[in-house]
């Protein structure tokens, strides 16, 4: 039995919609609305979903870059949502984040060495400047960059190289968990694969646990052990990678899988086309939020929110189709 590292239960993050000069709350965007999962050390959880499904907010809520509205996040058995400022600093050393946009995620005014140095000094890693400098150079080599480039500014690097620097910053504090928010989607195809391999290498070397957030199902499939599919703030299906792909159960998962174009012209797969667009998260549909686009929609879906149903060990689906009460 692997050690349980992270347990998220019923996580909700709602943002108030404010209107008028008095900034009165007129409603909430339920960006994350009841997400639960467990993650063991050394595993990779892929979170996949379309824009606005709340996958990035989920990641930031776990890190407490955004304070969640309710629910619980337990890291090594300790509740994260109620940590004080001082305790939060210790958490920051354990959990790190890699961002999507390698251009926006590095301060253009400072050299990459001082970007990395800052991570070290914040957590008092390394005795003095000299020792930290040596660690910085090692970090650069570790992510496949030449140590002679340490005194360069971010604008002198290509997108792929900047993403390597972003990864170096994340591993600088020697964390256990890294949340990677669309880390390859801004990169060219040939560079994506390099970065994905780097993630895998680092996981092997450092025993890292990943939460890998992406909209690209093929990327998520490639890197993950477990996959959660999100739609409008809810995790509609959660399973091990093999279970999910051999037996995709939620109608949304099925549609998503069939919609991904396959780079093989000889294989024409049957497509499940979804009607319409993703609804506005500020005014989500009643009942099951997916019912407006679902091909298997029943009457009950329009009014009652589906429960999470475990259809086989570790395979959870949030859909009335699998609820014996309605079938």
């Amino acid at each position, binding site marked *: 039995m692997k050690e349980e590292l992270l347990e998220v239960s019923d996580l909700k993050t709602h943002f108030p919609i404010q209107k008028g000069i008095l900034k009165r709350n007129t409603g909430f965007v339920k960006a994350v609305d009841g997400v639960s999962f467990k993650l063991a050390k050394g595993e990779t959880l892929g979170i996949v979903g*379309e*824009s606005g499904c709340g996958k990035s907010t989920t990641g930031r809520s776990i890190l407490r870059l955004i304070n969640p509205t309710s629910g619980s996040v337990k890291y090594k058995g300790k509740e994260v949502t109620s940590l004080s400022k001082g305790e939060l600093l210790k958490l920051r050393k354990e959990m790190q984040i890699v961002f999507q946009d390698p251009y926006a995620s590095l301060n253009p005014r400072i050299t990459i060495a001082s970007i990395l140095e800052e991570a070290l000094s914040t957590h008092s890693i390394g005795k003095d400047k000299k020792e930290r400098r040596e660690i910085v150079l090692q970090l650069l080599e570790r992510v496949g960059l030449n140590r002679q480039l340490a005194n360069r500014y971010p604008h002198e690097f*290509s997108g*792929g*190289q900047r993403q390597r620097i972003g990864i170096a910053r994340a591993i600088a504090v020697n964390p256990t968990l890294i949340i990677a928010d669309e880390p390859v989607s801004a990169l*060219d*195809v*040939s*560079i*994506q*694969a*390099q970065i*994905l*391999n780097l993630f*895998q290498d680092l996981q092997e070397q450092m025993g890292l646990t990943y939460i890998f957030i992406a*909209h690209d*199902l*093929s*990327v998520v*499939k*490639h*890197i993950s052990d477990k996959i959660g599919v999100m739609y409008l703030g809810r995790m509609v299906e959660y399973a091990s990678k093999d279970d999910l*792909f051999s037996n995709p159960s939620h109608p949304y998962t099925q*549609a*998503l*899988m*069939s*919609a*991904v*174009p*396959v*780079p*093989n*012209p*000889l*294989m024409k797969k049957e*497509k499940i*086309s*979804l009607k319409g*667009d*993703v609804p506005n998260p500020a005014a989500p549909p009643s009942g099951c939020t997916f019912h407006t*686009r679902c091909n298997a929609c029943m009457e009950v879906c329009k009014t009652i929110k589906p429960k999470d149903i475990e259809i086989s060990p570790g395979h959870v689906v949030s859909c009335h189709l699998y609820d014996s009460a309605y079938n």
Partner: protein
Amino acid sequence: MTTNLLELLEKNPEAVDEDDLLVVENLVIQFAAEKKSHVRAVNHVNFNLKKRETVALVGESGCGKSITSLSIMGLIPKHAGDVLGSIRLNNKELNGLSPKKMRQIRGKEISMIFQEPMTSLNPVHKIGKQIGEVIRLHTKASKEEIKVKTIEMLKKVEIPRPDKIINDYPHQLSGGMRQRVMIAMAMACNPSLLIADEPTTALDVTIQAQILDLMNDLKDQFDTTILLITHDLGVVAEVADRVMVMYYGQIVEEAEVTTLFTQPKHPYTLGLLNSIPNLEENKDRLDPIVGNVPNLGEITEGCPFRFRCQFALEKCSTENPPLFNIEKQKVRCWLFEEEGEVS
């Protein structure tokens, strides 16, 4: 695999005998750089598009694919860069036409859709007005006729309640809907060539699938040729008949879509195919292309891909290879010097 391909070709003979719609010859696009030198974004590109064909132009950022399409549209202003070579649509030379003449062709004979529909729609005008404007520019239709045609176009792109939507502003629509509006605008005057520059990149996968389906349907309905510009090989495999791969301003490989995916020849094409994770197969690790995409002007001689190529020969560092023809496939690589003949 080969027999499979031959069968496919036999079933699809029209692709061979049709007239060319667009012929691009020796296209060079260069921009002024520091110290009176030039940087070539597109370097001697030749291709032709046959009628009713969907051809994909594939490559990574900065490879020159978007610039190529802009030059076909005549959208590269004189002060910005030089466009040399010949671009012929139905045997009519487009390169060098006056801006006024080019305006008559744009929207009527060639039209274009872009990656981000929000930036190509004017936020202060209603949808109906913007589509109507295109029709008004190129036909002598009356106000009433324009309105009828506008609604008809919106129906063709499967927009629900078109009579309502014409009174909406772009920001009231979702990304997918806006792209449909863009397609309606592009197809309004029944162009013979549609250039689609990353038309689905900004969209979610489920919406992407809808838009690709729609483009396929419309192509049959309107007898349009599509030049699809994309970096997504999955999209290419799904919609293209023929594929051209670009790297550093040159076409490095050109082939029928099945040939390209089953027998890629250029090391770059091979590398791209190996780089992408595939839903249908399991790989523990990907085989990426090493190195970075070069910046324009960075490489001046030899094969521009040699720095990232693991098959690089000595010759590659001095001489840029020509395109070699191997049956119906074209490859710009010295590895195929023996096998192919220079085109």
